[in-house]
């Protein structure tokens, strides 16, 4: 009981979030990627997927892996408030993961985007799904976004034409350190939604079943010769 009481003190207050309805996207390869919300009990598979990338400096995989590892661990152990994790799977195999946080009814905090399977715009699709969750489902008005790699900067800041609020620091600041804060506002989202965000709902049971049990990738394009 003493432990439980302490644990309660350690946990942040949480707002029940609307669930993210799953969707399916046919990637250029013809493979179907199911995008759905991850469950806490799936944290092991998510962490196991990220772990090998901690040692990959190319394209800043190491820093994104390290931060996402802590974000998912924090979510699993109830140390981050109102976090959600979306996962993209192809035949059950994890192709990418995104993490994010609902801060207030009007504000979202985008955390990280991790692409495992490359060359099919998996990361771009998952980032768009994350923004869809923030703005269309949770009903927020703005999402704070930072980039920790040139790929991220190109994909989000430039392609979405995000609003640069870095001059308003420290009043406007993303939670991930002091890197410049950019913002996806509702008008910006509405301008790009149709060309950035896609997917079919509802997902057929047969497709959803493929994603029921998360499978850690057996190979990584980022780590030639990897063996689990």
């Amino acid at each position, binding site marked *: 009981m003493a432990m439980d009481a302490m644990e309660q003190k350690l946990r942040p207050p949480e707002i029940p979030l609307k669930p993210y309805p799953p969707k399916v996207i046919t990637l*250029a*390869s*013809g493979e179907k990627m199911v995008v759905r919300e991850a469950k806490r009990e799936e944290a092991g598979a998510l962490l196991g997927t990220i772990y090998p990338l901690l040692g990959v400096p190319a394209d800043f995989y190491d820093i994104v892996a390290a931060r996402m590892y802590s974000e998912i661990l924090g979510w699993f152990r109830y140390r981050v408030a109102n976090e959600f994790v979306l996962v993209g799977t192809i035949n059950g195999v994890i192709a990418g993961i995104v993490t994010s946080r609902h801060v207030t009814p009007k504000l979202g905090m985008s955390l990280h985007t991790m692409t495992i399977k490359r060359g099919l715009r998996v990361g771009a699709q998952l980032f768009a799904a994350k923004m869809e969750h923030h703005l269309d489902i949770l009903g927020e008005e703005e999402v704070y976004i930072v980039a920790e790699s040139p790929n991220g900067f190109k994909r989000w800041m430039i392609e979405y034409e995000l609003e640069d609020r870095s001059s308003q620091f420290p009043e406007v600041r993303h939670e991930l350190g002091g890197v410049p804060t950019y913002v996806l506002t509702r008008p910006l989202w509405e301008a790009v939604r149709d*060309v950035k*965000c896609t997917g079919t709902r509802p997902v057929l049971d047969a497709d959803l079943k493929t994603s029921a049990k998360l499978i850690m990738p057996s190979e990584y394009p980022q780590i030639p010769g990897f063996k689990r």
Partner: protein
Amino acid sequence: MAKVGVVGIGHTKFGNLSEFDLGDIMAYAATDALEDAGFLEKRKEIDQVIVGNMASGLFCHQSAVASSVISKMDMEPVPAELVENGPASGASAIKIGYMAVASGMADIVLVIAGEVMRKVTGWTGTEYVATMLHPQAEYDMGLTLPGFGGMFTRMYMEKYGLTERDLALLAVKNHANGAKNKYAHIQAECTIEAIADGPEANVVNTYVAEPLRMYSTCPVSDGAAALLLVNMDSPKAKLFSKKPIRIAGIASATDTHCVHNRKDPLKLDAVRIAGEKAYAMAGLTPKDISFAELHDAFSILELAISEEVGFFERGKSFLAVRKGETEIDGRLPINTSGGLKSKGHPVGATGVSQAVELVRQLRGEAEEGRQVRDPKYGMAVNFGGFGNNVVAMIFAKE
């Protein structure tokens, strides 16, 4: 003129090699070619090295790459010079190497070409490539090569009825070939449903320079390729382990630097003239060609070039694509390597990479599933600028 043959080919995998030095990847490809020819230990007997590269000064902040490669390969004092002709630098290097051998000035020439483009972002890379446009009339106006590709595609669509789906069919074909090519940057197939017909296609296959989409545009790639040329009439031709593949025709032509100075921007005169000269030199016609590698930096160029070199009537090539005539088992397979779209396009390396593919096919060494059946003649067109400096090559199995 002496007969000139290719006795060795080398190639790196194309893709993101930005952690490597340009000279190192060129040396890798050259070593591969020399090993293929069984001539690595005798490399100092080579008479001349010609290096093709477009923009190492911009992309890598490095000049004099010919000297760098020679030193990395321990080949001093073999003479080495650099050839630059935009994205046709590779084929121009082959042409200069060919001229050296055919003229009798050299018996054995090593041609190496390479580019490392991914040390900078794709946006910066696109800007660097745009420096080959007319400085005042085009570059300063903000034009880029994808911009030209988009405008050219739009004009072609309006004149001949090409659709975006036709461009997607080219991507499906070329990715099917590239998926089987061990050197290709993008070794992945794509489906017509996913990139054109399906409900998510508009996002999955997003616009790059409307009406060109991502799957109608080549990736930004790093890589290198090499050829060893020999005078087939010389006793030295017997020194090599592989039977030569003869360069039957090689020619280049130029067109106006400013595209707007052309009477009809849809006509690529330099391609047509280079092709005609190469056919004349080889004593062949378009009907003799078994397969071709055409410079599809943008998918529309595969169509336009295939018409200019006489494979199809003007404005009709996409109808042949619809019928599958340019697939690997079709009447005239085009871009058996995956083309620039799937194999990749390290600009300065592309012409030599195309030549390597001609040799692999003519030797019967292409991977299962993308080997053309019993080819006799292969043609390649390497396209410089926006069609202002073009090289055509025809290789023959002897």
